[in-house]
């Protein structure tokens, strides 16, 4: 168990050297998705608040990063930090009133956020910054060591470092005081309140943290695609993140990696299997996945481990 994280990092560092540039690019996208799904898991899996609107923060992070680089001429390394700050503040402010809503009502409020965002991005007044409907291009980071790392691998390593930081942070948050408070809040809000946990404040902060994670992922996603426009951030992004979260295991940290792999590769796989109805194939694969492992991959692993412990091996 202690070896899992270092082993994962070693695999992640080696991977881009054994696959092609195109697959390295896809793996970088997987890392961005994993961070976004992690943000959703912190909110939905650990604190029990359902969000259908994290795609909005993904968009916000992407635009913050691009504006930071294109308009404010900040270095690439700073862009995710800017995205994180902007998204944390706005996520917290949105979470402050929204977190008073329960379950499905919160889901609807966040859904509205995701629907509105692409429209807001098209606003004329914001056009000098956002590029309006036409979108904005962004120069991809150029590798400083082209002989060892080409641009694709460099961008992947950059995403990997950000991902390691974000995962380590989540790991510490969840295993500490805050994590216990969040889980208490999810499992028994009244009990948690009686224990002295400030429910409204904790919910709003969790919203902010979740938005921050999603925003960082959006910033990486923008760098990977090299272009953003309102069409890049339809409601489907939020739904994809939810699918990834559930498939990986919604209350899991490392399950997010599997969720990210799923939403990156399974739609392509579905496309290969059927020209006419890739959506149907994707749906069937998703149902199969949930049938075989209802608790996501993390749930499957946990129950396998429990069974083995039961047998006494």
């Amino acid at each position, binding site marked *: *168990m202690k*070896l*899992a994280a270092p*082993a*994962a990092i070693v*695999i992640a560092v080696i*991977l881009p050297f*054994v*696959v*092609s*540039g*195109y*697959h390295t*690019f*896809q*793996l970088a*996208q*997987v890392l961005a998705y994993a961070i976004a799904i992690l943000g959703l898991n912190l909110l939905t899996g650990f604190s029990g608040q359902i969000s259908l609107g994290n795609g909005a923060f993904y968009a916000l992070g992407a635009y913050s990063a691009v504006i930071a680089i294109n308009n404010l001429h900040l270095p690439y390394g700073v862009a995710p930090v800017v995205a994180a700050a902007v998204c944390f503040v706005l996520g917290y402010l949105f979470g402050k009133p929204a977190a008073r809503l329960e379950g499905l009502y919160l889901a609807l409020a966040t859904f509205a956020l995701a629907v509105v965002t692409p429209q807001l991005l*098209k606003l*004329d007044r914001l056009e000098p910054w956002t590029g*309006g*409907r*036409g*979108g904005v*291009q962004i120069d991809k980071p150029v590798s400083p060591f082209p002989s060892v790392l080409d641009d694709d691998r460099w961008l992947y390593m950059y995403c990997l470092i950000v991902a390691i930081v974000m995962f380590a942070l989540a790991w510490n948050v969840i295993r500490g005081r805050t994590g216990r408070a969040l889980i208490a809040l999810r499992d028994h809000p009244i009990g948690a309140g009686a224990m002295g946990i400030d429910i409204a404040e904790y919910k709003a902060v969790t919203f902010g943290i979740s938005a921050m994670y999603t925003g960082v992922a959006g910033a990486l*996603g923008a760098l*990977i*695609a*090299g*272009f*953003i*426009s*309102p*069409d*890049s951030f*339809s409601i*489907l992004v939020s739904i994809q993140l939810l699918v990834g979260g559930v498939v990986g295991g919604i209350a899991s940290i*490392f399950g997010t*990696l*599997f969720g990210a*792999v799923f939403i990156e*590769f399974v739609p*392509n*796989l579905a*496309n*290969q299997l059927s020209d006419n109805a*890739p*959506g149907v194939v994707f749906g069937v694969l998703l149902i199969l996945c949930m049938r075989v492992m209802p608790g996501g*991959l993390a749930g499957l*692993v946990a129950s*396998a*481990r429990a069974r083995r412990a039961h047998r006494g091996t």
Partner: protein
Amino acid sequence: MSTLKWLVVTATGVLLVAGCEQKKRDAGGGSAGASGSAGSAAASTGGATPGVTATEIKIGQTIPYSGPASAYAVIGKADVAYFKRVNAKGGINGRKVTLISLDDGYSPPKAVELTRQLVENDGVAFIFNSLGTANNSATQRYLNDKKIPQLFVATGADKWGNPSKFPWTMGWQPSYRQEAKIYARYLLKEKPAAKICILYQNDDFGKDYLAGLKEGFGDQYDKLVTKTESYETSDPTVDSQIISLHDAGCDTFINAATPKFAASAIRKIGDIGWKPLHLMSNVSASVTAVIKPAGPDKAIGIITGAYIKDASDPAVANDPDLADYRAWIKEYAPELDPSDTNAVYGYGVSMTLAKVLTQCGNDLSRENIMKQAANLTHFAIPVAPPGIEINTSPTDYWPFSQMRLARFTGEHFELFGDVINAD
């Protein structure tokens, strides 16, 4: 320990999926091998360009087969069906054309990913007729950096004909700006003292129109244009805009609206008894989608510009020039509706590509493909109105910069006047 185990499983899974993908693609590609004899002569020159062999030219595109713009899926299906027939007839200079058409769901990041897949994994020679302004913007820099032709992009935006900055990208249809310039040119000639009112959609589409009119009228713009009104796509109707334009006392009305709002404008103009000279954008010039809902009697006399024929027009349905189009769609794309303008579009744009590849002969280097695309002279396609030609040059990356005007007679749009050039 088991966490470690499933991490390894995941990593292996990634590699497996990636590997399968590559294998499957390769199997899908070069099978037929129709022309052994023509191939051997070309084999020596054919090796340089990815996707080009002695018997095959492999090309790719991304199309929204799913998502909000999936009505355009017809274009991708028509493109594929067109080259199916080309291949059945022996291909182009002995090579069959394999078009890999992928679904991007109208999402720019997906378009980037799939375009990279086509280029780096599938090894296509170039990208042909990918759809959507944002999606093509997203891949434009990548393709130009790699010097890969991005031919005949399917969008009406006004940024594709820019060979000095993006020498590997070329559009196909006339842009909205060019269309507007053609209307301005017509009005300057036929009605130099017009009092003009303009209705436009408040987005890139409408603004391109306005820019074209400004450019077309030049210093006459302020004198001629009495009033402009805009609408948002969230507006229920454009009734109030029409009343305000009517009150301005205009005798000429330019309707730069998309179908739903163009129909609303036609109906309101008829209802209030306003009788301006009415010019309407080509995107709304559909008898079934706009004129019928608005009321054909209210639409008599409306003028629009045409660069391809309206296949939903019953007069066009019997056009002998379209006999080949109808035969093709019946045999190779029976699931498509022959009266769908997108099918006509796919046929026309694919025919243009076939012409470019024929002109390339046996030199299928990317440089030569681009050179030949920029070397089309007086090329007429049967789905374009008579007199319209495709012309390109190393400095003119606009295949269509001409239109003919057509007037609605009560049943269909009838061509009149000469070909008008935008430039």
